[in-house]
């Protein structure tokens, strides 16, 4: 069985078919990229997977389990984490607090014990901290630990968001345009990190991306989307050569 599978996924907003019968399969441990022109429905697919949108049709299968009806706040617990295209960090909190929230899905304490801050809660906090320190080391964020998000430059915020997603200890990571707004060097770093996430952490990555350099560098498989439909799937080279894809990007 495949690791993560999308079957006939569709969502219609009134008469607009934003995603219209999309099928794809992601193997464990690969980097799978979704490309396509603006408005093709890439982010919509992400929102469907993280259950923010209710699909009109279709099925999502992760680790042989149907997650089409799982409520959105339980997606993280299932091992799927995501980042956002426009950065959705908690601005009035420190980097540390942002990352600690990443561990929220692993919370075991209850309200009463937290009101008294019983030893169990303290130990849980320290355990959370150890987990997120691994991510801080991995992404080289030690310098920013106590900074408020609102005081950080855009490039760092992007990394913090990736870190927060990693703090949920995901098995499948959804990256929505990880390189948007980054300069050439930062994009290069992002490419190395995605590679490390795949190879060192063994996390499967599903990514929406416009930068074809980054896509062909890190992806094992690429899916091209236009008007909510799949144009082509395959290795980066195959998809870039596909006449349908060329037509969608350059017009024909």
């Amino acid at each position: 069985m495949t690791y993560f599978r999308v079957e006939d996924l569709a969502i219609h907003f009134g008469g607009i078919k934003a995603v219209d019968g999309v099928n794809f399969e992601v193997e464990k441990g690969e980097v799978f990229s979704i490309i396509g022109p603006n408005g093709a429905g890439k982010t919509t697919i992400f929102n469907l997977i993280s259950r923010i949108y209710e699909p009109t049709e279709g099925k999502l299968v992760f680790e042989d389990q149907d997650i089409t009806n799982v409520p959105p706040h339980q997606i993280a617990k299932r091992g799927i984490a995501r980042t956002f295209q426009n950065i959705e960090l908690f601005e009035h909190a420190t980097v540390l607090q942002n990352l600690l929230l990443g561990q929220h899905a692993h919370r075991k304490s209850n309200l009463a014990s937290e009101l008294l801050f019983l030893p169990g809660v303290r130990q849980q906090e320290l355990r959370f901290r150890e987990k997120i320190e691994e991510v801080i080391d991995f992404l080289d964020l030690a310098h920013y630990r106590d900074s408020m998000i609102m005081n950080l430059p855009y490039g760092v915020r992007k990394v913090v968001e990736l870190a927060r997603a990693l703090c949920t200890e995901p098995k499948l990571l959804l990256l929505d345009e990880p390189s948007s707004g980054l300069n050439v060097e930062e994009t290069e770093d992002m490419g190395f990190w995605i590679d490390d996430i795949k190879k060192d952490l063994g996390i499967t990555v599903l990514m929406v991306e416009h930068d074809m350099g980054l896509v062909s560098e890190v992806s094992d498989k690429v899916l091209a989307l236009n008007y909510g439909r799949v144009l082509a799937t395959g290795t980066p080279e195959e998809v870039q050569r596909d006449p349908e894809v060329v037509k969608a990007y350059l017009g024909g």
Partner: protein
Amino acid sequence: MRFIFKTEYQQDVKLFPHGGAVFWYSLLIAAMFAAPLVLDEFYIGEITYVLIFTIIGVGLMILTGYTGLVSLGHAAFLGIGAYAEAYLLGQGLPFLITVPISGFIAAAFGVALGVPALRMTGIYLAIATLAFAIIVAEVFARWESVTGGYGGMQVPDITLFGIDIYEDWQFYYICLIVTLIVMFGALNLLRSPTGRALVAIRDSEIAAQSMGVNLAKYKTLSFALSAGITGIAGALFAHKTVFLSPDSFSIVFSIQLLVMVVVGGLGSLHGAVYGAIFIGALPQIISIAKDYLPHAIGEQPSLEAGVFGLILVLFVLFEPLGIYGRWMKIKLFFQLFPLYKKATFKRQKSYMKSERVR
């Protein structure tokens, strides 16, 4: 300047960041306990009011400052707590039981308001809570068999461990202890996963949800906690005012409470305390100022409301972080002297989605 050298994770979990803070807060608490020995009865009465407002402030801060849900109906929760306390004491229940029950009753109403409010944010939520406050005030006036209607309701005296509490300083200690308990609980909550989840909801609902925060659960919880704490404050408030009437819990009072947390500084418990001091002191200052103001201004019936409004506007314009924000700036000025940079606190213009304060 103090530089905290961190060597273990434990240091970020602690209630107080460093030894200096432990010292100063202990000194403050000791001074609060010693106050009745030194101060006049009038001042003790006033400080008691400030303590009660502090408890309300903590309650409202959890909802508005930390979860980002604006409430214009907190006087209603205060009233529910107050009437519940007066009624239950009248039924012969002991004080130690009636106060928590009053809190729970207010919390139940908080849940009742919170569940329909789940789909609302910003101005719409404010209107819904406003409507709730109006309905509750109306119920206080009409439900004569319990509340006594416009005739009012006498609040029975407290008996605690066989001692009748009738002196101001005795009640002051009760309020002080309740304030400390509430403060301790709130501080604990805010440094644990629940507190982080509330802040997450305030700053970005969509991200909070993707990280595993159940929005419905935590928003309702925030409403319940906030209303419950305000209800406990209401129980104390009932004893302080001795006589309850529906006018005591009007819309204007709700707005004053919101002014309190905004002026104190949204998003910090310090702000709740500063706001309470502000709300407690301002009427006194105005009444003193009246003697010096020209007759035409000093005798205006709505002078107090006008001054409150003016101060709120000035704070929103010039110091959105409230008194606490100002205090932080003064502190930093002295810490960095003479290297203070004005731009440190300058708000950057940014068009990120999560920047919107809701």
